[in-house]
Structure formats: C-alpha cells, structure tokens
C-alpha cells in the first residue's frame, strides 16, 4: 500500500507546488494593482518555449533555466508598461479583459511559431534517473523541481519580509496613496512587483515543461487551479497560497488513486468546503480592515 500511496503523495505535492507558484504570482499582481492577470499562464508557457528554443539552439539546460525566466520578465514588463499601466486607475474589469485577450493572442502565436502539438523538452541526463528513498524510487527531476520551487519561495519571502523594498511593497498593498506620500515612486513598485510575478511564472514555466509537457495551453491549464488555490489559501496571503497549493495537489493525487473520475472536481469541492467554513480562505485577511 505504502509503495502505491507514497509516490502519489509526492507527485501531488509537486503539482501543488506549481499551483502555489502560479497562485503567488497572481496574488502579488492582484494585491498591489487590482489586476487579475489572466495572461499569467501565457507568460509561463512563453518561458517554457523560450527555454526549449534556447536548448535546441545549443545552450545548456541550466543556462536556459536562468535566461528564459529573465526574458519572460523583460517581455512581461514591456507589456505591463505599454498596455496594463494605463488601466491601473480604471475598473479591474478592463485589465481583466485586456489580459484575457492577450492570453488568447499568445496561445495562437505559440501555435504559429512552435506548432499546435506539444514539443519534446526534456531535462538533462543528470536529472534523468531516480533516487532511492529506501521504500520507493523517486525521480531525480521531480526532486530537483521541488528543491528549486522551495528555494524560490524562501527567497521571495526573504525579499518581501527582510528588505526595505519588500517592506515598501507590503505597505503599498495596504495603501498606495500613503506610500507616495512617503516619497516612493509607486510606478517603480508596480513595475518591480509585476517583474517579480513574471519571474515566478517564468521559473515555473521552464520547470513545468519537463514535467507536464510543453504545449501552447500548458500555462493556461495551470491558471484555473491556481485561482482555486489562491481562494482556498485566502486572497493575498502568500503562506495561504503555499498551503492551499499543497492541499489541492495532495487532494488531486489521492483522489486519482482511489476515485480517478473525481480528480478534477475534487479541488472545487475542497474550495467549497473551505469557503463554507472560512469565507475569506484559510489565511486570508480581506475584509478585516474594511
């Protein structure tokens, strides 16, 4: 039994970590600017394809793992500055429609450039094998992904809670007017915050390509679960997104094992239950301060 359940649990946690990653990126952008970035998945896919192209042109996987997210940040910030910034002051529905449009355009562009079907993108040989954990064999790639995602989350938390820039970001989420009144250029905060979200999406994109398969819809497939995760964890709570992501991943993997047919609906059931008990999510504080 253990040999059956344990790998599923591990895989579920890794899937959940991806959901959490995407959810955190979404929350960062939504908390500060009110923008619900429906193109978030598209940026994730873009990073995957950029890494694929870099590797097929002869760069090493490791280099692509760094460079592709950086390029995604550049593309993302250009789009933010040119298209999304003018909408920050307007009703959130405008930026939601814009980013929805962007995601549709992006999907077609990816189809045109890289073809409608998935492309093979595999991690280097060193990540190929498995590591014996005694009671089970665990694929090295998955372990690597888990370590990178965890390290990135720790870095993000350090950035937000230990640097003065992070303090400003956390403050700006609570009151953008006052942060200007304290002498900070809010546009710089918007830009860095968006870039941060893009970096998370980019990193997740490259890592997901090797695991979930790189196709034009890869990122968008992660978007819906990410929203569910953000709601379960509590909108705006970083820690909540992590817990929510791992919970959803776990629930999906365990359900797949016992009632495969229900593995898609389980996250919605989980969300409904959480919202019934705690309407603002597990760690959400929204509504607390009006």
């Amino acid at each position: 039994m253990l040999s059956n359940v344990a790998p599923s649990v591990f895989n579920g946690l890794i899937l959940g970590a991806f959901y959490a990653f995407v959810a955190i990126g979404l929350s960062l952008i939504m908390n500060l600017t009110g923008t619900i970035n429906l193109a978030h998945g598209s940026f994730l896919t873009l990073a995957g394809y950029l890494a694929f192209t870099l590797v097929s042109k002869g760069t090493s996987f490791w280099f692509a793992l760094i460079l592709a997210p950086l390029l995604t940040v550049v593309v993302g910030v250009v789009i933010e500055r040119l298209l999304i910034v003018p909408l920050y002051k307007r009703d959130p529905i405008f930026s939601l429609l814009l980013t929805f449009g962007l995601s549709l355009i992006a999907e077609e562009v990816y189809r045109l450039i890289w073809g409608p079907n998935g492309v093979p993108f595999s991690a280097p040989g060193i990540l190929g094998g498995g590591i014996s954990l005694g009671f089970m064999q665990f694929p090295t790639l998955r372990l690597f992904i888990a370590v990178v995602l965890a390290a990135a989350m720790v870095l993000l938390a350090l950035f937000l809670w230990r640097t003065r820039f992070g303090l400003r970001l956390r403050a700006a989420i609570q009151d953008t007017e006052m942060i200007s009144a304290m002498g900070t250029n809010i546009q710089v905060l918007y830009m860095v915050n968006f870039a941060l979200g893009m970096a998370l999406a980019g990193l997740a994109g490259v890592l997901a390509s090797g695991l979930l398969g790189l196709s034009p819809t890869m990122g968008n497939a992660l978007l819906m679960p990410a929203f569910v995760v953000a709601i379960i964890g509590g909108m705006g709570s970083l820690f909540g997104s992590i817990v929510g992501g791992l919970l959803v991943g776990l629930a999906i993997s365990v359900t797949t094992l016992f009632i495969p047919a229900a593995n898609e609906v389980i996250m919605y059931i989980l969300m409904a239950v959480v919202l019934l008990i705690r309407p603002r999510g597990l760690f959400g504080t929204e509504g607390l301060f009006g």
Partner: protein
Amino acid sequence: MAEALLEAKNVSKHFGGVVAVNSVSVTIEQGSIYAVIGPNGAGKTTFFNALSGFYIPDGGQVLYKGQDITTMPNWQRVQLGMSRTFQTPSIFPELTVYENLLIGVQSQQKIAFKLRLPSAARKKEIDARIDELLGFVNLVHLKDRPVAELSHGSQRLCEIAMSLSVDPTIVLLDEPMAGLAEAETERIMRVIRDLHDRLGLTVLFVEHNMRVVLSLADHITVLDRGAMLAQGTPSEISNSQTVREAYLGQEVLNRV
C-alpha cells in the same frame, strides 16, 4: 516679512462641469501655522491635493521656495521637504507602528532602493530616529503593535509621526481632527503646536472647526464653494463681516 515657502497662485481645479476650486491663491510663509477652513464641499481637500501633488490643477501655479512644482509628482515633492497626511488616517494597518515609521525613515537614506540589509550601526541610528519620532507623539509604548489595533486618535498621531519621518520642512495635515473626540482633539492640537514651536516646522492644515483654527493658526484662508471668501490673521477673520454672514453663526463667534 518671512520668506514664502509654499505658494498657490490662482489655482483652479474642476471635475467635469463642477468647479471644485476656483482661482485660489495663498502664500504660506516659512515658520507659520496656516489654516484653510470652510464648510463641507468648500473645496478644501481638493485645494490641498493640488498643493501636495495628488491632483494636477487645471489652472494656476504651485510654487515651493520659488520653484514651480505645479506638475511635479507627489513623491518627488516629499524629497523637496513637503509631507502630508490624509483625512482618513492613511497608515499601513497590518504593519507595526515601528514598520510604518521605518518606511519613511529609510526613504531619507539615499539608499532606499538597495536590497542589502542595514548594518548594525545603521539599524541603531534608524531605531534611535524612530524612538525620537514616537517620543514626540507619545506612542513609544505602542511601537510593536500593529497599527490596526490602535485607537483612532493614536492612529492619527502615528500618521503625523510618519509625515515627520521623511524630514519635512512643511507638513500638510488634511483635517487632522476629523472624527475625534474632544480629548483627542486637544491632544492633536498640542502636537500641531509642538510641530511649530519645538520642531520649527511650517504647518498647513485643513479644518472645518472654527474654534480650532482660530486658536492654532496665525494665518487663515476661508473657502466657500471653491472660492476664497476671506484671508487674514485670526482676529481679521473673526471680525470679518463676510465670514460672519457666510460661514459663522454669531453664536460660534461669541464662544470664541
């Protein structure tokens, strides 16, 4: 005559067809306590926002030490030496009192956007400055509490301390007494007087309570429906027939 620190020349602002501020001019001298008073809807806050850069006026000019700052973004004005508070306390509720002040204190160190952690010596300096600011408004004992847990009056004081944390020359306070009980109003009034007397700052504040304005300010501008009704010293204002008729009840004046 002291030097003009902040000047508004024929400042106007309209929203659609509504004229919120109509050609208002004020000259705030260095070292004065200046009040803008008027009933609700008189355009006080709009005028205030035009001075602090939260609105760009449709007409007229704003000058700071003679420099035209009419279209300068608000955050740059902070670096010139202007800081402001808001009518509803604008604080960061989930951060502690200490962290709220840290933001302003750090912004004064030209390394605000660097990511490295402050050295031990630097941190000591910052902490000393924060203690000094909290001492000024008497909030030292609440230093590590989230601001959301503070009383309304203490939140106001925290916001005033925040506006001081950026080392201003002039502090602009938007209805600092709004929604406060009598005892708390007294407390804020004492702090405003201290800003001037002890710290040597120039103060501009917006208020609708005539008693407060007459006892604190040395210069007053009365606004009514967006326009200037009167301007002068407290005695000139309280003796002005126009002000009496348009804004004050005789009864209010008798109490003063």
